[in-house]
């Protein structure tokens, strides 16, 4: 298949099916989210006063409401259409879905942002969803009694996995764009310090570094493209 045919197949045969089923499953997810609350109400006859439900909603919305909008936009260029539908019903995006999607792309030697890259990322994410659910289900079956007997050192040690993951991933992506990486990290450090000092809202870090890095990355790309055109003239 030629490049054009591949992209055409991706856009006209693959993506429409993904959008259709992505929408169906996401809307179902919205309704199913209320399952446990509805069971409490209809089976166990316990419904909190409406004022309490509203108060709970207002608290959580003021804490994370901005992230509802910021995350899907920030992560879209990374995970694409299928990944967006998957990531936002399965959660754990930065710590699980994106690492798995990008490792899959690397091993399959396809580039992010291409048709092949998006198909492989979708496979990677799907496997991470299944593996996560299998492990959690085993955890639930073993139950708290057995899990609680794990030595506390192991539980503490597991806390260090996440920083190691973020450090490793940043290095991995830096290899692809070594000139851009210092800007991305520098921006992240500045924004983190700003948030710590109380001058900036907490949600700005990820959104600001993504937007800033994309802006600088596109500028670099345009500059090198212009230089290339000049050479050709």
């Amino acid at each position, binding site marked *: 298949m030629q490049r054009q045919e591949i992209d055409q197949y991706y856009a006209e045969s693959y993506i429409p099916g993904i959008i259709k089923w992505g929408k169906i499953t996401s809307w179902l997810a919205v309704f199913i*989210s209320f*399952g446990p609350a509805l069971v409490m109400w209809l089976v166990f006859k316990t419904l909190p006063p409406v004022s309490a439900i509203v108060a709970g909603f207002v608290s959580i919305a003021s804490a994370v409401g901005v992230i509802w909008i910021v995350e899907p936009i920030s992560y879209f*260029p990374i995970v694409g259409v299928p990944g967006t539908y998957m990531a936002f*019903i*399965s959660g754990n995006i930065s710590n699980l879905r994106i690492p798995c999607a990008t490792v899959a792309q690397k091993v399959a030697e396809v580039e992010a*942002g291409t048709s092949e890259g998006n198909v492989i990322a979708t496979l990677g994410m799907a496997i991470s969803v299944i*593996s996560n659910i299998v*492990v959690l289900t085993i955890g639930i079956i073993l139950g708290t009694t057995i899990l609680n007997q794990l030595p506390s050192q192991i539980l503490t040690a597991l806390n260090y*996995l996440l920083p190691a993951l973020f450090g490793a991933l940043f290095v991995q992506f*830096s290899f692809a764009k070594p000139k851009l990486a210092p800007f991305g990290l520098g921006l992240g450090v500045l924004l983190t310090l700003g948030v710590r000092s109380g001058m900036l809202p907490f949600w700005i870090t990820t959104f600001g570094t993504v937007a800033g890095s994309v802006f600088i990355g596109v500028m670099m790309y345009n500059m090198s493209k212009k230089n290339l055109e000049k050479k050709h003239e």
Partner: protein
Amino acid sequence: MDYLVIANSVPMWIAAGLGVGLVLFQSFLFTKKSLAAGKKIGLSDQQMKSAMKSSLITSLGPTMVILTALLVLIVNVGSPTAWMRLSFIGSVMFEMMAAGFGTEAVGVTLGVDEVTKVAFANALWTMALGSIGWTLVAVLTADKMDKAQKKLTKGDAGMIKVISAAALIGAFGGLLPPHLLSWNLNTVSAISGAVIMGIMMIVSKRYSDKTWLKEWALAIALFGGMFVAVIV
């Protein structure tokens, strides 16, 4: 009746099972569609197989972290809800925060006061209402974002690749500094993970015929970083 008896009852398991089942269904469906599409657009079986294998290996580390969170959540909201919430939208931090806000709204502080049935029910409402925001924004924007991206880049494939790569650097450039700047074992672990990954990248480039090096690189960096933080 104690709220945890209700929280671990059969109807709760059914409600939670529907959520977990839906996520699994979507994953199997998308896998099937992607395998078929991959074949059509010229991806080899070998490429797709090793992609899936490497994802499985990579998922183990982060999943262990989620498993420890499961323990915290089980104690507070019961097994079925913990199982559903961690397979479904949201993250550990979010779920604990939402549960806390929910019980606070009826005057119960988690871990301090006795949790009443009403407080538990309100935690469930808050977790649901707080998490659907992500899904709603995603489902309402995903297909439009694709069109917007195409318009902004004017179909320049090189530009789309640059945006993806830059967004990755930005995402983790933003997630890493809070750990780097904490000046404790998190800092040690973050730097060790980064250094080990750097070595793994160079080695796997040198021996590019060894696919297993690429498949295991991130898992090795993860557990390596953790190991260094523990022995320091």
